[in-house]
């Protein structure tokens, strides 16, 4: 096991709202190894984005994080703004879902790119320009010199996301956090962007945290996968184990209810009954128990901690010997 790049220890995120506190993330511990791609899967409200916004110090003003997020010996949760500013965009980069809202609309693409180099690398503007254009070329943006002078709105969604990736890669980060980087894009463009991220990981050895709701994207990209539900990790393991032998009923349910391109049957999809819980009124015990078909008395009373699931994986479930998942099989 290589040394970890980011270590989350007992990280919790709460939001104060007029209707009371919302526990978005609860006591989450997780680490990402050097050069590893960790997939974070979950539905809306599972806390998958808030976990890493908290680690980056980018929570909304009513959000509050406790716990630790250790990156390069620094606890990001407790770090002050100037320490964070020194790391973000340099050793720690982030790519968001919507490149239009994460690029500054009134600044030329080139300026936004060179700013990073001037700030973190003290480059002169001509040197920065050369580096930025080289990076645009590297992420396969056609006519990089011309795009350099353009505003974000003049670019297509796919090109904007390439600019975001170029910006993220400029300083050779140790970790890229990509939050639904391809959700807003068409499939052919998604394939191009995923290929770029994969190459950054392989050629530059950058660790990647890939947050997504798309199980297909994770299957192709991730080395390990964490499945989140209601602010907690319910299963964590090697990508093959998660997909071929999921040990948590929620993981199994998610896989079974996803329509697959390689599945020619048109029978009714397996569904997970009900809907994700309200984070302000989480059920007692396991948060998934009202939707779980394997629920036991114990699940209603006690919160299952993360425990060994065999094969190096972890699961938060009291069930033992949960059967091997077969594609297309009905969840018992």
């Amino acid at each position: 096991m290589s040394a970890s790049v980011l270590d989350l220890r007992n990280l919790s995120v709460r939001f104060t709202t007029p209707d009371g506190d919302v526990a978005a993330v609860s006591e989450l511990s997780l680490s990402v190894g050097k050069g590893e791609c960790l997939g974070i899967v979950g539905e809306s409200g599972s806390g998958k984005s808030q976990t890493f916004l908290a680690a980056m110090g980018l929570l909304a003003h009513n959000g509050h994080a406790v716990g630790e997020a250790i990156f390069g010996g620094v606890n990001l949760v407790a770090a002050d703004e100037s320490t964070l500013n020194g790391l973000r965009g340099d050793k720690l980069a982030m790519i968001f879902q919507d490149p239009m809202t994460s690029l500054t609309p009134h600044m030329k693409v080139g300026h936004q790119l060179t700013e990073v180099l001037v700030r973190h690398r003290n480059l002169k503007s001509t040197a920065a320009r050369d580096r930025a254009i080289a990076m645009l070329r590297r992420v396969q943006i056609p006519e990089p010199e011309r795009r350099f002078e353009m505003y974000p709105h003049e670019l297509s969604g796919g090109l904007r996301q390439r600019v975001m990736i170029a910006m993220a890669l400029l300083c050779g980060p140790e970790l890229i956090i990509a939050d639904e980087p391809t959700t807003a894009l068409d499939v052919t463009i998604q394939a191009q962007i995923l290929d770029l991220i994969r190459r950054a990981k392989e050629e530059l050895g950058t660790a990647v945290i890939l947050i997504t709701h798309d199980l297909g994207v994770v299957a192709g990209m991730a080395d390990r996968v964490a499945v989140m539900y209601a602010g907690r990790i319910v299963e964590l393991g090697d990508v093959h184990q998660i997909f071929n032998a999921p040990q948590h009923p929620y993981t199994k349910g998610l896989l079974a209810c996803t329509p697959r391109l390689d599945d020619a049957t048109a029978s009714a999809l397996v569904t997970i009954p009900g809907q994700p819980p309200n984070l302000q009124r989480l059920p007692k015990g396991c948060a998934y128990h009202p939707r779980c078909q394997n629920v036991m008395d114990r699940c209603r009373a006690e919160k299952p901690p993360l425990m060994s699931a065999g094969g190096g994986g972890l699961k938060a479930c009291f069930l033992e010997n949960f059967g091997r998942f077969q594609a297309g099989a009905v969840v018992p």
Partner: protein
Amino acid sequence: MTSPLLQVRDLKVHFQVRAGGIFFGTYLPLKAVDGLSFDLSAGETLGIVGESGCGKSTLGRAILQLLPATSGTVAWLGKDLTALDRAELKAHRRHMQIVFQDPLASLDPRMTAGDIIAEPLRNFETGLSSAAIKAKVREMMEQVGLLPSMVNRYPHEFSGGQCQRIGIARAMILKPKLVVCDEPVSALDVSIRAQVINLLMDFQRALNISMLFISHDLSVVRHISRRVMVLYLGRVMELADRDAIYGKPRHPYTQALILAVPIPDPDKERAKPRVLVAGDLPSPLDPPSGCVFRTRCPRATEICARAVPVLESAGVGHEVACHHWRD
């Protein structure tokens, strides 16, 4: 073979887009839908797939006469809808419904769930007593999996999945013959998406509805459709039975689309040939000459720039618009 319920012939929807200049700007035609023809039989689901800007939503709206067609015909049971006036059209509307993508935005925030579901009845079955309407709404809510006790709640009190159930109840309450579903599950979470897909398929079978299922998600379309039409920049690239489209795609665009969809299986996904479609969608205001896909096509040759490929038969019920589909 029953005669088709819906016959679309050479349908074109062009928009005029102002290009440059505040006072004397010129207008360019944006050919959102450019000469589409197809039939839809009773009880059939036709999936319409394509990426942003391919004209799939415009097509759905033009068929329902929510957008005026520039030319071409949309024949409903043999009658051309594009030639009807408002009153005549209204009589047909009760048979044609739509389910939208954004479940919350497509519901009036000031109406209760009950009123939203009852609205089609109030418009088209004016003879019904309010007690009868209430009973029908109750029954409909149960059918779509909503608690009838939620009848007086407002859209914002429901989750996205529940809002989509309200939208489906509204579309189905008149027992329509044709339903256009425009990305009905794209905004929903995975676990909710499966529930809504099953619900739509149940209605489709129970009422023998003809369905146009518009989506960018090829996996969902495979699951729900009998036939599939692939669009690119307003034109049909390929139209065939579901198994032919997914099993033996002929058009390079269809092949590329299918390869680009990630499969939730690490072994299969990693073993897949990594062929990327180069480049970006060209501007629809300035589409390429000849075949619109040629700028991104790995098989493009000189003829593709010169001649627009016509739809040719590549098997029973299988049509392809490509100069090189035989290669």
